[in-house]
């Protein structure tokens, strides 16, 4: 059997077929560049994302835009604690400040990819050109999302700094578990971007109020992630949903690394974790393994959802359909 990649022999007396002017064309360029090509597409998308997000305005103005939202979100919770007062609220202050600071990054990551798709389709009307470019569509969109996560990370760091300097959050760099923080941050970022990819798959199909979907989804996940209150106060079923979410494990791991004496958002009296495992709170290795497993499952599901949505959008002509939403 002949090798399908080998061109058929040219019959005697005929010159091989050539497209005029394409003599120097290298067919390998049309086959995709493998991992190297993906990396190039990804880094270019990150640069474009950053340029779209950040390089057009005064740095001070951009700084205000980036930190006002997470700092205000933390202040809302701090005032709620102060209004109630008492020992419980003092105990929870660090808990909520760290949780709401981390949430800034979650929101940016979830919204990043969805808004990139909506912007490219509805505002800049570039999505069809991105789609037909040699770079992988998912890789490019993920790059755009990562740029927004970087902006969110800035908000997280500033909110933590405000918490330490102005709100009395205890921070001792010698007590921080830096290796744990590094591991959960990397795994957490992957998990956050995965949720963003799922939402990207959704907004590829939807119109109308799609711009507000990331906020709505982030708000819903806020409930089951233990960001600002321990999961133990939720009904059992909601706690189980939280335990299946990588974000809950990421927040628990980050909080454990930054504030070793903090209350656990997963375990504790009346928690599903206590009922299911018999232990008061998960150990550090359990947190890392749980984050790894739930994050891997989430990433796989996100990839499948995005590919499926991409196919459907192509079939139905949604990629270049500007809807005015």
């Amino acid at each position, binding site marked *: 059997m002949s090798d399908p990649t080998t061109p058929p022999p040219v019959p005697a007396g005929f010159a091989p077929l050539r497209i005029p002017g394409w003599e120097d064309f290298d067919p390998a360029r049309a086959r995709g560049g493998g991992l190297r090509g993906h990396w190039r597409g990804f880094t270019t998308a990150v640069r474009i994302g950053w340029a779209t997000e950040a390089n*057009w*305005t005064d740095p001070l*103005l*951009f700084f*205000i*835009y980036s930190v*006002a*939202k*997470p700092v*205000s*979100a933390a*202040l*809302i*919770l701090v*005032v*709620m*604690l*102060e*209004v*109630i007062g*008492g020992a*419980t*609220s003092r105990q*929870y202050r660090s808990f*909520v400040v760290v949780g709401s600071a981390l949430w800034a990054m979650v929101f940016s990551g979830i919204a990043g990819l969805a808004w990139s798709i909506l912007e490219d389709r*509805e*505002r*800049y009307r570039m999505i069809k050109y991105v789609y037909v470019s040699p770079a992988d569509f998912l890789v490019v969109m993920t790059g755009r999302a990562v740029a927004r996560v970087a902006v969110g990370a800035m908000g997280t760091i500033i909110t933590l700094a405000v918490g330490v300097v102005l709100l009395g959050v205890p921070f001792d760099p010698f007590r921080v578990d830096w290796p744990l923080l590094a591991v959960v941050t990397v795994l957490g970022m992957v998990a956050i971007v995965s949720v963003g990819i799922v939402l990207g798959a959704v907004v590829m199909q*939807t*119109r*109308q*109020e799609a*711009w*507000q*979907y990331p906020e*709505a*989804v982030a*708000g*819903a996940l*806020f*409930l089951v992630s233990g960001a*600002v*209150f*321990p999961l133990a*106060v*939720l009904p059992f079923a909601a706690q189980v949903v939280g335990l299946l979410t990588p974000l809950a494990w990421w927040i628990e791991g980050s909080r454990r690394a930054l504030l070793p004496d903090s209350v656990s958002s997963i375990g504790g009296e009346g928690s599903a974790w206590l009922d299911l495992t018999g232990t008061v709170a998960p150990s550090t290795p359990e947190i890392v393994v749980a984050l790894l497993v739930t994050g891997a499952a989430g990433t796989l599901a996100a990839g499948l959802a995005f590919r499926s949505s991409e196919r459907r959008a192509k079939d139905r002509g949604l990629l270049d359909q*500007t809807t*005015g939403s």
Partner: protein
Amino acid sequence: MADPAFSRAGPGRRLRPELFVGQADASPQAAADWSRRRILLTDLRAVRGRAYPRITGLFREKSWLFFEILLPFLTTSAFVFVYRALQAPPEYIGFVVLGGAMTAFWLNVVWMMAAQLYWEKDQGNLELYFAAPMNLMSVLLGMALGGMVMSSTRAVAVLVVASLLYGVSFEVDQWLLLLAVFGLTLAALYGLGMILASLFLMWGREAWHTTQLMVEPVYFVSGLNFPVARLGFIGALAVATIPLAVGLDAMRQLAFAGSQVSLLPPLAEAGILVAMTVLFTLAARWSLRTLERRARIEGRLTMRWQ
């Protein structure tokens, strides 16, 4: 003289839209000489036309039921559970639920009033609005009315479901005043939205970020989940300038009779809302004209994606 746009033929007085288009006149001056009635009716049609897609859109793509009702309800629930974790008094749960319902209107004002003309510019519709023979305030009013209907569905759903689920008990002594304050809050909110819409005519990409800036920071200073009086001077300033803050404070007092922490009595806050409504509407009219003129001079009306 009878307006030729109307006919008594047929049952009742009927609008004849064909007379608005391509009618033969003696001169361009005559064609432009519209009666007051015709101007008013054209503006009313513009209001209806701009409100129509927002209301009809509710029935077109049903995914909003999930994203606009269920998920915001879960966000509100998160704050309910914060108070539960702190073993707060029950009325605080009610404060959160009421605040959660009112966020629907604020988000609508920010995203679909303030930023709307900016989106329209990006989509190429703004030129059509300016070229059409109508007052641009009609477009803003149409957006506001459509937005109120849209947001009311979400607000009512959050209020009813959360109240039932979390056992919020309202104690209302003055229903009429409560309804009046609610109506005035919406009027003032959408009046503010009209002012912001005209400001957004001037803005470029920062418009997007400004909408972000007007969510959590405004929630914070408006005391969305706690009595605004707890913020002291910042709270007082918010009550004097942000309809959401003053409206929520008044509604909390009226919906939870006996609620102790408030800045002013509900009647005084209703007065502030009346003043805000009048002031914002007049200011919107002035700013729309002024900024439209300035945007024309600076060539910003047709400049996209800058």
